[in-house]
């Protein structure tokens, strides 16, 4: 079981993603904007962060960059969660320190597995 923070302002997307990840036996915390997301990540040091690139206060790229500036969060798997065109999503995600991209709409059958692939194995 991993602790996953989802930073996503769209309640439908957040609920669906959280439900699928909880069903896969993960503990999930949802933060609805960038500021709350940063606070949650700084306080909980999750095993993985799933971040929407479009957030209503601080956008996802900036939040990703702020996370990566913290020494203790440099290696936390960070996944961009976006509906952007694939090329843009991948280049932006890479530039801002994300480890990968999961595009919306999510595939409910494979989503938990996609996220799980980014989790670091327990030593």
């Amino acid at each position, binding site marked *: 079981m991993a602790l996953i923070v989802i930073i996503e*302002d769209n309640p439908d997307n957040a609920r669906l993603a959280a439900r699928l990840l909880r069903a896969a036996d993960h503990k999930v915390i949802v933060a609805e904007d960038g500021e709350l997301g940063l606070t949650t990540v700084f306080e909980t040091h999750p095993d993985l962060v799933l971040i929407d690139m479009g957030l209503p206060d*601080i956008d996802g790229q900036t939040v990703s960059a702020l996370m990566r500036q913290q020494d203790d969060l440099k290696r936390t798997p960070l996944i961009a969660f976006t509906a952007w065109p694939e090329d843009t999503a991948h280049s932006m995600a890479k530039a801002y320190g994300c480890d990968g991209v999961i595009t919306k709409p999510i595939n409910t059958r494979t989503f938990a597995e996609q996220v799980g692939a980014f989790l670091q194995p327990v030593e």
Partner: protein
Amino acid sequence: MAPKTGIPPKTGPLEDRVSAPASQFDFERLAAIYNQARVDYIVPMPMNAKRMAEYVRSYDIDLEASVVSLNAHGQETGVGMLGLRHDEDGLKRGWITRLGVIPERRGHKVGQFLMDALLTQARDRGCALIQLEVIVGNAPAYQLFRKLGFEDTRELLVIRRPPGAPEPNAEFDAAIVQTLAEDEVIACLRARGPGASWVEETRSLVNAGNLRGLSLTLPSGEQGWVVFQRTAFQLTHFVLSPGVSLDVSAALLYRIHQEFPMQDTKVENIPLTDSLWAVYQRMGYLEAFRRTEMVLRW
């Protein structure tokens, strides 16, 4: 949710469509309607109430002239906003922005209804020119604007640079750099030529505030300046002195990113054909998306 005042909304061309001035809704509600309308957009740019209020102030949005559309059940179906500005030569211009229709309430020509309402508001207020931008790839919106008589003017780039110090450059390091005082920042902005997009016009920058400026002299004697906005999390609204070499422009960007290596940067609406785009790329900027700027003249 009904408007917060009891003012009856205007009836639209169809009985089940009406519009109400956006001024009848608070910023929280306007942001919520806008976010719902853009939820499936190519590049969703949601806003909270604070950002919506800043947007309205920075870009001279007239909420009396901006509209929220409602259906027969009183449910909001979409939103469109109108910015208004007077140029020094007396030309009154309008700017249509934040236009969107809530996905589950599309298919009833609500987009056209909103546009008709905004164009009527602009015409009634004496605008001779209306401008807007549409994200490249948003074919339905683009087709609607063409149908209404808008013509393309140019393609604009929205670019980003993640935090990080630039690669060392001995020539740029040897430049003499001075911070500009507030009055010097304003003087630089007044020296700009025309041609900025609405959000990058001097009026937008002055409204937004938190402006900073640097002047720079290279060892060769070449000089230039840059004005930009620094917010808590981002550097944005860059204006580089016109008519200087690309080296001076690169040196100015270099010195900004050297001074603020931890800050993320977003620069909006660089014309695709502007030679500065190559300078931005040299400094590590990436294209996020493109907009087509369009104009309608009466």
